[in-house]
């Protein structure tokens, strides 16, 4: 394993600090996808010819690998198009299966990504109501506050790691209390799964959503973990080909999970790329990924704190993993990002990060966000800091 070889973009001299938006892809992932298209391409299931049998096997093996990456059983892992589609599918299925119904309360927090907010807002038309746990003025969530808001709640949908502040939530604590009260738990794992080891068999959550593209995999594929307890009772979210048992003109019965939840031709190459990405992470070691992310975040926080013209958001301590949000006083984030890009080849993200309610809480319309992954180095943080000093001098 050699990062420079595996990630050719590193040779372009670009310091990529936009990993929370999407990560780069190693050659191993790109090869796995092109190898499938070159030599094994066919539609899956029901085919009797060699290629179709190979493709089906590759797809199902990919499911096994992604499932085992999060400690799930194969059948509990449903391929989707990404976190956003996972949460839409889940919320709709919970309504169709009458797990949530008129009068049910869903508990969310004020820091959620729009993708973990709008699908739940959509359920209001069915009489479901939403309740929110507020953060403090730095965007920090307090687990005790979440626990104290659990009364009469049917389901909690919570980010495992905030895409704005980088705060890792103490899920063990929250889930334990939720389970005592018989509350279902969905975790938006879009930022958590790529950066810290997650084992659903230990964590005891009911549902988990995540995206391949934020963990070295391709875009257009993600996963929804559904605990096996619910697989039979849950209604599929999409219906059509590939998920049926017997169909007449008037009605149909469905096949078994997980296929029951995957109507239509899935993103086969995407699943294969996803599995290649988790293979890469496994051989790199998730403990090493987390170590690098934590070290870089700690270092970035230390260095940014030294700049008196920079405001930092979030916990600013060891709870923060892989993400740092900040602003240069008196300078619009767009200007910061443009100058960093042009003068220092440093790529950061600016804007509301799909979390407008949290921006309002922080009292800003946008922030700058630097986010790290396994190929980043301390020198990348140094270049960011150098760039920020220049921004300050130039237009601050």
């Amino acid at each position, binding site marked *: 394993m050699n990062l420079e070889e595996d990630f050719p973009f590193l040779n372009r001299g670009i310091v990529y600090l936009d990993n929370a938006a999407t990560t780069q892809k190693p050659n191993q992932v790109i090869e796995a996808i092109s190898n499938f298209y070159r030599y094994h391409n066919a539609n899956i299931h029901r085919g009797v010819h060699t290629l179709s049998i190979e493709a089906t096997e590759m797809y199902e093996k990919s499911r096994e690998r992604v499932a085992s990456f999060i400690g799930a059983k194969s059948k509990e892992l449903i391929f989707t198009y990404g976190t956003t589609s996972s949460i839409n599918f889940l919320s709709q299925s919970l309504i169709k299966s009458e797990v949530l119904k008129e009068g049910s309360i869903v508990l969310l927090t004020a820091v959620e990504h729009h993708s973990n907010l709008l699908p739940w807002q959509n359920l209001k038309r069915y009489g479901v109501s939403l309740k929110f746990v507020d953060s403090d003025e730095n965007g920090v969530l307090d687990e005790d506050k979440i626990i104290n808001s659990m009364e009469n709640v049917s389901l909690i949908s919570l980010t495992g790691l905030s895409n704005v502040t980088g705060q890792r939530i103490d899920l063990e604590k929250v889930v334990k209390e939720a389970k005592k009260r018989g509350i279902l738990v969905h975790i938006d794992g879009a930022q958590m799964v790529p950066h810290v080891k997650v084992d659903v068999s230990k964590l005891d959550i009911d549902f988990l959503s995540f995206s391949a593209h934020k963990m070295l995999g391709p875009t257009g594929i993600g996963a929804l973990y559904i605990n096996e307890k619910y697989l039979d009772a849950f209604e599929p979210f999409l219906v059509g080909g590939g998920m049926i048992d017997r169909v007449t003109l008037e009605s149909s019965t469905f096949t078994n999970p997980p296929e029951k939840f995957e109507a239509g031709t899935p993103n086969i190459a995407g699943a294969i790329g996803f599995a290649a990405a988790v293979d890469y992470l496994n051989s790199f070691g998730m403990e090493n990924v987390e170590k690098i992310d934590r070290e870089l975040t700690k270092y970035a926080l230390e260095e940014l704190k030294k700049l008196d013209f920079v405001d930092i958001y979030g916990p600013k301590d060891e709870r923060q993993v892989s993400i740092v949000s900040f602003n240069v006083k008196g300078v*619009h*984030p*767009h*200007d910061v990002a*443009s*100058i960093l890009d*042009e*003068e220092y080849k440093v790529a950061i993200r*600016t*804007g*509301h990060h799909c979390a407008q309610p949290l*921006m309002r809480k922080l009292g*800003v*319309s*946008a922030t700058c966000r630097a986010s790290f992954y396994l190929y980043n180095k301390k020198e990348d943080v140094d270049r960011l800091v150098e760039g920020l000093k220049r921004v300050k001098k*130039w*237009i601050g």
Partner: protein
Amino acid sequence: MDWMKEIYSDLVVRYAKDPSARKELEGAISARDKNESCGDEVRLFLKVEDGIVKDASFIGEGCIVSMASASMLVKLIKDKSIEDVKKILENVEKMMKGEEYDEDMLGDLVVFSGISGIPARSKCFYLAWSVLKDMLQSVQGG
């Protein structure tokens, strides 16, 4: 890319930070627009008498490009007839699309002549002008 040097030139930064155009105008008509994706916001104030822009100003918040563009707008349209302001706006739109335009009408704003090549920032540049366009429709005929 040279455009960066121009966008963040002293001239542009000076306009963006110039406080003189930034105030509310009493007794003026006003309108606002916001770019939701980045939060940039501009409210424009116009005093129009006998078909002439007697006074103009703006308040707002945003990046250097959006603020400098608004500040230049205010300077450009003051004391001009509505007809002339419309012509200025037409030329601004031409510049933004990368078409031929009359440089003489746009004064310091030509520093943004390369904006057509930077789609990511042309929204910032156009924010104040889009407010002006809406307002012109409502003051139609003076």
